[in-house]
């Protein structure tokens, strides 16, 4: 008892707070809240303010510059042209695969393999794909040796290199999210439908898909946001001056090559707003989906 008392006296903060009647436990969040406010919220507001204080011109000059010059506004279109197809491919592929894997007994081996590209990160995946897809890589060796084509297939330093890099690094993420939403659906619901004579296709169409839809919408958003913020692979595997000059490259060049932090902040804000607009659009259509429990009525 006495050393416990001594221990609490060694912490004057706790004593001071308890005298004021504030629960010391609740205050444990304060350092983290302050940290996130100072290093996440404040930079965002600072960036927003900075974007309205251009190097030259009126307060909207950065935004006018962005939306008047195709060199800038085309980056949105180029990013969407990469991110939208990749996300659709990833989400559509993940559904049938997750439906199968859900029934597997040793899922862990597969999930471990799929976690590899996520853990290794986009830079390594880009470097690996450069070697693998390059003119002297194994893929072109196979293409040439099998007589499929006379000349090597060009898959690096263009649009397709980035698409493949995004599929390799984001598909595992999309898949694992789909799998976790699927595992949340009680299998006995399907069992009941099966007993009542529903075919596999009908069970998927009328039971699984409606229950999966809200999860898929969130999954689509998270995967899309990742694909939309593509950066290293667009530089390393793509054609960063042409077809894969994505919006993050424009922001990076403005900040770290032209040292125009004001323009860079404006581009970063436009990037964030585009993501937000698409995510908000998707999630607002969630109202159309079934929102009840995916578990069976009786536990």
């Amino acid at each position: 008892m006495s050393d416990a008392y001594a221990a609490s006296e060694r912490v004057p903060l706790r004593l001071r707070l308890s005298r004021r009647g504030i629960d010391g436990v609740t205050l444990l969040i304060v350092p983290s809240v302050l940290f996130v406010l100072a290093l996440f919220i404040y930079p965002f507001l600072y960036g927003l303010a900075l974007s309205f204080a251009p190097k030259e011109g009126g307060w909207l000059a950065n935004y006018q510059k962005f939306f008047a010059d195709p060199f800038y506004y085309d980056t949105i279109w180029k990013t969407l042209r990469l991110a939208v197809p990749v996300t659709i491919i990833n989400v559509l592929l993940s559904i049938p695969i997750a439906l199968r894997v859900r029934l597997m007994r040793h899922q862990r081996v597969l999930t471990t393999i799929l976690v590899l590209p996520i853990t290794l990160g986009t830079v390594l995946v880009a470097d690996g794909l450069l070697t693998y897809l390059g003119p002297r890589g194994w893929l072109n060796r196979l293409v040439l040796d099998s007589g499929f084509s006379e000349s090597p297939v060009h898959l690096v330093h263009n649009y397709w290199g980035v698409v493949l890099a995004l599929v390799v690094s984001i598909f595992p993420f999309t898949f694992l999210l789909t799998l976790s939403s699927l595992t949340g659906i009680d299998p006995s619901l399907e069992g009941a439908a099966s007993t009542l004579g529903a075919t596999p296709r009908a069970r998927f169409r009328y039971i699984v898909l409606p229950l999966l839809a809200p999860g898929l919408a969130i999954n689509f958003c998270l995967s899309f946001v990742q694909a939309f913020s593509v950066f290293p692979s667009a530089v390393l595997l793509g054609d960063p001056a042409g077809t894969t000059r994505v919006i993050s490259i424009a922001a990076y060049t403005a900040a770290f090559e032209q040292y125009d932090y004001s323009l860079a902040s404006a581009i970063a804000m436009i990037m964030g707003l585009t993501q937000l607009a698409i995510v908000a659009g998707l999630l607002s259509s969630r109202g159309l989906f079934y929102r009840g429990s995916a578990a069976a009525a009786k536990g």
Partner: protein
Amino acid sequence: MSRDEPIGARLWAVTVWATVGFFILNLFAVIASVVVNSFGTRWFNTWLPAGFTTRWYVAAWGEFQLDQVLIVTLEVVTAVVALSALFGVPAAYALARRDFPGKRLVMLLFLLPLLVPPITFGIPLATVLYRIGLAGSLYGVIVANLVPTVPFVILVMIPFVEQIDPRIEAAARVFGAGTWRLFMTVLVPLLAPGILAALLLVLVRTIAMFELTFFTSGPTSQTLVVALYYAVSAAGIRSGQSIDAMAVIYMATTLIWLLVALRFVNPTQIVGRGRTG
């Protein structure tokens, strides 16, 4: 179940597994081609290099100053892991145990840095860090990396705290333990598996965190992944084999920790942002 499946369903199953197999085969081929290239001598128009050597590793070590890069990586990772635990675990405890006005707002505040991609918040963050003179140094890299990891630790730890019976804490309080003593002698030992899992995930994520480190690092504060990016983007200058040797060193560093982490966490937790964990 599979015995009475119609042919169409079986064909579908075969297609699905073939797709999975194709993906994994290519994934392994990508990794293997980096490893083979890093050990190869000359590699033109053949399936395998003409001979094998380890000299690219020696070359990469010197060319890319890997000893310095590895020390920086170690310093950044250690600091990020320790500080995110110091910030995150107490906050997770408070959020799991207390209901207070504005709690949902606080949760949203912690969710945002995990949902907004680093490239979007990295540029304003780097701008601020440059203004206050932190960017370009080791401290800037550490601070920037903490922005997503502190919320990550909080969101991973909340369910672990919720699993602990509050009566154990009540008992400790009855016997006169203060918050600090309660933490050190009751909670930390009980939370050890959760803390270990969260910190291993932070470690793996920090080694691979490219964007934030890239934006805030200077010439002497590059981590391995940033050094690798610079090497690949200047590929014309360096030989491809020594770049791949560096890539293999990076892979080895990451995969060792991934294997350690997988002993304690589920693979899905690595992609989890709190929700799947």
